[in-house]
């Protein structure tokens, strides 16, 4: 693995003993469909029934109180009456998929998407649910999906990290950096957050001119080589020399990838870089493509930030219409542009795009404010797009009002197992020995959703 330099374990006499602690070599378990992944995360909980999970019955029941089997315990307060979607739905594409007017741009891409309509999360509180989607566990401290991918596949690029994170410029998502933490996996698998355009990585910029920088790297490497002469075969030392060489290259390559001067006006327009509403997230979408192009294994981007007032994520408790309209205004167009751009460049053939959230929202009104919806972990929608998937396909179903999963429940474990599968990784074998257990992304659960595979 290029990112990991030295410091690894090597087997010695105590063969079997060490075998447990020895790290696996990066690589696939079987032929992969995709080699890169772009994770798009929408914190707060985007509503399924107001976007891709069309429920015409909501209109019929609008304003009625629910009873009987649909009794539910919302996160806040008392359940209100059924609330129809504030948006109209219409069919799109060859698949005829119904999409709400909230997402006119993504609606144009439905034939590239593979929907999971019956997602089930284990918690209806944000914190644990976000942890589950980000790491597979409802507790803090486990490795994130991206770090498992990095650990599983390693890097394809010597000049950039294997897992890059692009948070919403308005702020970090709820639970912060734990969303891309490496947990107990080695630190090089931690997501590297790219900050502002000019200085994407901490301390990337040298305080000296390039000529001085070059001369100093030169001095360092000569003295280190000298030192290596006294310690021949020292892996850690050889590793350090390589790490400094990589640091030098990264100082060039990271600013290069974030510099979008070379992108055409048409591309800028498509990603919404000319519109203040979409510019910041649009830039991240474009950057995601550029990073994947350069071999970054996993890019995770967020549309939505932490909690607080005013809301800057999809947690539409008080006023769903206003909240989702505001969020969609930044998310819809750039995400659609990213899908179109990847497709047009042929990159969807070996990249999988994942669009997800921690849970959906209830079909009833919350009974406060202007018609908000409470959390619904019992049935919500995510989509994937790209390599190895049936395009324009919908898997799973919720009941007629969108309360609960009615068919083919997909747990987060299943969702993660399927993603790893697309990358050529067996979710039961991708493991790390920690505190007495071979730990996995999917804990002891999960099945690959075979139905969605092309």
């Amino acid at each position, binding site marked *: 693995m290029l990112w990991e330099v030295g410091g690894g374990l090597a087997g010695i006499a105590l063969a079997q003993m060490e075998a447990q602690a020895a790290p696996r070599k990066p690589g696939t378990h079987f032929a992969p469909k995709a080699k890169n992944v772009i994770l798009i995360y929408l914190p707060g909980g985007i509503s399924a029934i107001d976007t891709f999970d069309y429920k015409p019955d909501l209109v019929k029941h609008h304003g009625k109180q629910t009873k009987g089997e649909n009794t539910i315990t919302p996160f806040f307060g008392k359940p209100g009456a059924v609330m129809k979607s504030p948006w109209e739905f219409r069919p799109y594409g060859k698949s005829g998929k119904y999409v709400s007017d909230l997402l006119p741009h993504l609606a144009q891409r439905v034939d590239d998407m593979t929907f999971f309509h019956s997602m089930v999360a284990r918690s209806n509180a944000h914190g644990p649910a976000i942890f589950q989607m980000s790491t597979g566990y409802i507790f*803090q401290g486990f490795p994130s999906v991206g770090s498992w991918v990095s650990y599983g596949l390693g890097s394809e690029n010597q000049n950039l990290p294997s897992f890059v994170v692009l948070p919403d410029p308005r702020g970090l998502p709820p639970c912060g950096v734990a969303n891309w933490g490496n947990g107990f996996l080695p630190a090089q698998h931690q997501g590297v957050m790219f900050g502002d355009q000019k200085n994407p990585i901490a301390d990337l910029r040298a305080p000296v001119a390039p*000529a001085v920088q070059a001369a100093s790297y030169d001095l360092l490497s000569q003295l280190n080589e000298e030192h290596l002469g006294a310690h021949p075969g020292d892996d850690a030392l050889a590793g350090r020399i390589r790490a400094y060489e990589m640091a030098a290259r990264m100082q060039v390559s990271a600013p290069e990838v974030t510099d979008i001067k070379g992108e055409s006006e048409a591309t800028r327009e498509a990603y919404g870089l000319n519109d203040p509403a979409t510019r910041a997230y649009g830039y991240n979408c474009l950057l995601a493509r550029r990073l994947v192009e350069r071999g970054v294994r996993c890019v995770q981007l967020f549309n939505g930030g932490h909690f607080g007032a005013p809301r800057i994520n999809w947690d539409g408790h008080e006023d769903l219409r206003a909240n989702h309209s505001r969020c969609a205004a930044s998310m819809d167009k750039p995400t659609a542009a990213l899908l179109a751009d990847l497709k047009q460049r042929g990159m969807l053939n070996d990249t999988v795009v994942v669009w997800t959230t921690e849970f959906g929202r209830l079909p009833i009104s919350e009974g406060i404010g202007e018609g908000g919806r409470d959390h619904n972990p019992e049935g919500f929608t995510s989509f994937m797009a790209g390599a190895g998937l049936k395009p324009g396909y919908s898997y799973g179903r919720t009941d007629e009002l969108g309360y609960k999963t009615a068919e083919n429940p997909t747990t987060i474990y299943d969702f993660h197992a399927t993603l790893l599968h697309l990358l050529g990784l067996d979710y039961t074998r991708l493991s790390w020995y920690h505190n007495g257990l071979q730990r996995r992304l999917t804990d002891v659960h999960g099945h690959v959703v075979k139905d969605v595979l092309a």
Partner: protein
Amino acid sequence: MRKCWLLVVVSAGLSAQQKPVDFQREVRPILSDACYHCHGPDKGSRMANLRLDVPGPAIVAGKPEESKLWKRINHATPALRMPPPAAHKTLNDAQKDVLKRWISEGAAYKEHWSFTAPVKRELPAVKNAQWARNGIDRFLLARLEAEGLQPAAEADKRTLARRLSLDLTGLPPAPAEVESFLQDTAADAYERLVDRLMAKPQYGEHRGRYWLDAARYGDTHGIHVDNYREMWPYRDWVIAAFNKNMPFDQFTLEQLAGDLLPNPTMEQTVATGFHRCNITTNEGGSIEEEVAAIYAKDRVDTTGAVWLGLTVGCATCHDHKFDPITQKEFYQMAAFFRNTTQKPMDGNIHDTPPVISVPAERERARWHQLLVEEKARRDARAALRTRAGAGMDEWVRLGKYKTVKTPFKGYSPRWTLQTPAVLPEGVKLVDGAVGGTKALSFGAKKSLELPAVKHDLDSRKAFTVAAWVYLPKEEQNFAVATKLDWVNKKDSITQGWAFDFDGRRPRFQMMGGKKDDLILIRAGASGRLKANTWHHITVTFDGSRDYKGLSIFIDGKVAITETNPNSGGGMVEGSTLSKAPVTLGSDGNKKFFEGGAVQDLQILDRQLRDDEVEILAGWMPLRYAGEASLDVARGAAELLYLQRTDKAWGKANEEWLQTVAEQRAITRRAPVTHVMNEVREKDPEAFVLFRGMYDQPRDKVRAEVPAVAGALGTKYPRNRLGLAKWLTSAENPLTARVTVNRMWQEIFGNGIVKTAEDFGAQGTAPTHPELLDWMAVEFRESGWDVKKLVRMMVTSAAYRQAAVATEEKRKKDPENLLMSRGPRFRMDGEMVRDYALAASGLLVPTIGGPSVRPYQPEKVWETVAMEGSNTRFYKQDHGEKLYRRSMYTFWKRSAPPASMEIFNAPTRETCTVRRERTNTPLQALITMNDVQFVEAARNLAERTMKNVKSGFEGRLDYLAERALARPLEAREKAVVERSYKSFLSHYDAKPEEAKKLLAMGESPQDGKLSAQELAAWTMVASQVLNLDEALNK
């Protein structure tokens, strides 16, 4: 016997064909990994009712071909072959061969090595006996000789001085220290250097830093809002404990059960902070029972990893899959930690109870004295009150208090609320608490501005505000009386003061007109008032600008209060004077007091004493309703009597108040720290939680230790005290081994058991089991003498070897697990930073105190933190605080110091006893480009130029002695000189670039030095500090 053991050890996987199979080292790991999941200790997941962790029917001893185990692992049909395909485990031929030979040899099971008591065996015989300096060497050498390896030669003295200094103090040696060691030709020069280094206070800092990873020490609560937690007195306790060489059994006892010791000292109570270091939450919607279960699990996991080296937490939801620990035993362990007064929600406050104040060292003697004095004076005062007896009762009964004209001497309020002539709509006059003036009641969004009343409360002056208040049932924020200028409504920035209610708890705030510039106190949970009732509230202030100078009294009695200080430290900086008038029933923005009422509001220009507040609270009831009307009235009546008639009581009262005032003053200066406090009324117990689910409690269990390691029996109490004593008893097979192993890991890089946190079946086997046991017993028998143990390790010949590997050693011992050469590995992030600071002369050696905030990349906290968090904005310190040792850097759990984290520091959210050690480009970027390191390089360069007036070589020697503890060799010097010249010519051509480089960091520059030359030397210093040699121990 010894010979036999040697053979076994040597066998491990090499050309082991002829040697008997060792169950512990060879067989169990195979069975554990491939079979135990379905055929192990956990009955829940056991298949075919077959166990392979104990002797059973699947094995016919001596006859592999007849054994079912052998047949099934070789079954021709893949579906029937074990382990089954679904397990994704396969046995290779070598592993099968081990199993076959083991069965042939009789299939003897042995108890897992770590569960049997360590035995101190005779030192093994070695050929090269004169090499060995102590017992450690005998064991290591025996193994090396068996492998056909020779130890490396002893390292040169400079290398040894540097290595010792780093291992014993965490800092590079001072050049003078190296020099005196070089000059010292005495036979025990080395040992005396060891002693000198161990006597330094930096020894305790360095040892303590490792321990703080295990203790998961941090400066914030960790979950959700992640607010400040005041905890650093515990960190300082750890440092002091190592420095005074507290025996490890005592160290254990005080941290796990200091509160349960008879008459614990303040220090022993501070020590219990160990188990208050876990991450906590106050997230809305959290379920208290669930949170309490999570805390208990963390404490079990931590105790298991640190003392037992067992993954006890694996048995939270079911029996342990690999080790003989049942789920019930997990909850028996949890019971130890579920019997304290701590509440699950941390309240987002910096001092979540139970906490104690920890006065500064110099005030401690007085503080202890005051504890005794206060009690004596309180008792004396109470005795006099009792003595007043019948006379007082009669006086009260006859209502003589009505003849008293003023509540107490010097009662003259600056302002008292009068009934206004005209009232706005929605504000009404109603009857008050107990007669007197009418009260004002407020309708929806109604308030009363008093334009003529301009009574500011100055944060620099003492005052008292008192009023009778009637609270409606609702829970929202209610404004009673305020005087606020709204500086910025969007960010809620105000200037002035506000007396309001928050969740029915009285609250008082003073605002300085800038963001986060305020002080605030609120009554704690016990001060939550009953609705639809009148209460008398008094707020007093000492004029200190500090939130600790504020007190709240409810019905005449002082209330427990809490605060939410901003990261600035709970002082209001700006002026609290405002232009606004006093407003009743509103904060002038969105808060009102609908359904509430206020009566007899008054402001006094001094801080009333406790007895005066009590009288004030009882004054109106006594006037209008008599002593029987309210509890507070009776107390006030008695005080009025005593004040007037009993000189002796008056004197005792004064004395008592003086003591209390002095105590409060010391407390106000003192930090608090979080501690454990056992509930004494009941025995520790817990419920087995079905599948680990907090809402599925099953059987109730008592506190007990895991049976595999022993039992409390009747010898030890069934609480944390018993646990702590048992942990360090000779009966416990684990603690001494686990502790010795962790110390070994600190010094030699890898533990003898590499998985320092897991000594169970899934952990790695010890490379030198007999050495581990020998040291464990030595350690215990020495009285758990930590310094002696460390000394033994660093004075061994093994430690003193040069860190040079031969071709053969790299092949046979690539990781240096056999110690075929001296230890050499990359230092932890803290050491890397401290090293640069020390070499540059910038390091400020102050020990202990509040955590500091050195340079950090921009917005590291802001982007992570939640809106309301008081650790949202990183307010960088200046001056000395930029150059303290890294262990004092403020540790925010959700955003640990970036430069540490990149060097594999844990987040300190959970216990860590072993850090990963990776080398990545991001680390290189920090040590090359980060302001802290560039500034250190510049200071090292300045020092060099100032101390060696001229001459390249002399200067380079000076620099290298500080950065590497050795002068460079001629070849190296030539390389550096070429680079230096190229740096210099660059900066000569571009002096403005030199200035830019030298401007990095806040330490003053020496303007007399040539900027170009200094810049060139800065680059040299930076590169030398980035050498592998500098970054490695």
